[in-house]
């Protein structure tokens, strides 16, 4: 199946990506070709097959609830684009 511009813009919004007008046609064409390609999966008979989420068929390991990492805020925030008094700055979200 192929996708249209409206669908691609919706997907881009879900993915938190903006797509420029001059690139939208190319994005639509290439995403459509990928979706058409993975559509081959529909040919496989998968009734009664359990979905496989993990290659080792193992359960998530549990650990003791103990503090193992120490947060060094100043060092971590050195990579942040904008901080103030130890806070990450973002545009106003509450009026």
């Amino acid at each position: 199946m192929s996708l249209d511009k409206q669908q691609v813009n919706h997907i881009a919004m879900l993915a938190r990506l903006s797509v420029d007008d001059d690139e939208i046609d190319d994005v639509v064409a290439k995403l459509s070709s990928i979706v058409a390609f993975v559509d081959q999966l529909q040919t496989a008979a998968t009734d009664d097959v359990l979905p496989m989420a993990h290659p080792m068929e193992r359960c998530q390991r549990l650990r003791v609830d103990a503090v193992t990492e120490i947060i060094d805020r100043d060092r971590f925030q050195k990579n942040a684009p904008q901080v103030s008094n130890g806070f990450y700055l973002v545009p106003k979200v509450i009026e």
Partner: protein
Amino acid sequence: MGDSSGPFYRLSLAELSRGLNRGDFTASEITSALLQRIHDHQALNAFITIVEDEAMAAAEAADAARDAGNAGVLCGLPIVHKDLFCTAGVRTTCGSRMLDNFVSPYDATVVERMARAGAVMLGKTNMDEFAMGSSSETSYYGPVINPWGLDRSPGGSSGGSAAAVAARLVPAATGTDTGGSIRQPAALTGTTGIKPTYGRVSRFGMIAFASSLDQAGVITRSAEDAAMLLSVMAGFDERDSTSVDHPVPDYQAALSAPLNGLRVGIVKQHFDDGLDEQCAARVKEALAVLQHQGASLVEVDLPHLDLSVPTYYVVAPAECSSNMSRFDGVRFGHRAENIGDLLDLYCRSRAEVFGAEVKRRIMTGAYVLSAGYYDAYYLKAQKVRQLISQDFKNAFATVDVIAGPTAPTGAFAIGEKTNDPITMYLNDIYTIGANLAGLPGISVPCGFSDRLPVGLQLVGPHFAESAVLNCAHQYQRVTDWHKCCPEDFT
């Protein structure tokens, strides 16, 4: 041994180790010579970052440790890391403009273990952006050149690591493999590359692409060198929730078993249309060598092999779209200027710096996970993944390893496949199955097609790294393909 900067680059890791142990030379001498060679060949674009001062300091520390009788198993041996492994204090870009200025506050476990064993890190290698690619062309830092043909791609995504080892800039490099990203570049550059069992090597500090598929490994000049490094890298790590607590055998000690009685599976689907004729011929010659060494060849069936690439291109993008959501322009990475609201901050910060392939994978993932399409794509792909995994289990009931081609062709030209994602994706047809099923696989050089290297892939059951490495090593004992070096780099 020739002039002081001459001999080192020709030596394998094992040879360098023996020389250091004998006192023939020092880690400082090796490091200084290889740093010079890396500089001399910057045109390959194999590196994103070179760390001279840190490397020289680490080499001096290694020499001092050796003098004091405290030499670790990798003491003084040079290593470079794919720029996807976090390195404390040295920037980690993952090949993306998003992380152009990112400096990790911690070391990846792989980096830490190698450093603790005394290895000297010389730099960080170039790669496809966030490991999403099969040609090392999607890097923000430009494409990597294959030393076997300067218009050729070295494959990807660990193309910088593969090119650096192939050009003898370094004897060994780390890589990561989500769908073939160690084995395919190893094949295209005439090097040896191993992807261990999922969970064998810690993923802590590896920038995640597809978490149920990613696994760290190495690219070297021989299986012997890969065994030495894997012994250090492998093992349980409580900081990686998917790390498997399973004993680590002595991989080097496992390299002495004769191939007598080894059952080698040949997959009939491997030799269908799509495999270059010369590649097929080289792989068949390699199989004959294994047979001559005492292995028996047994035909096996992987009936769902043709669905492995479509399965991967649902599962991997789905996991990618989740993993990539961490790049929000708030805590680290690029942030757009003159932003409006928070949504605008997210959308533009991401769109401005992610490359086209990364965006395609994020959007493919968002689509297959979205309401109305989840069952038809993501759930369906997980079921087909189960079928593919079962195919391998059935095959390993009758054989010890599976042997076949690593890639369908030799190295393709830079730019040849960039406009058609599907053609690029199909380059990983023979490697993806091992990732979907979590199996260990290695690629070793087995000859040439039009003067470009061809790789033989060996895949084993879970945790059969010893068998896979030994089979590769026995093959390399009687062949010289892994010793071939591109003309301008001898």
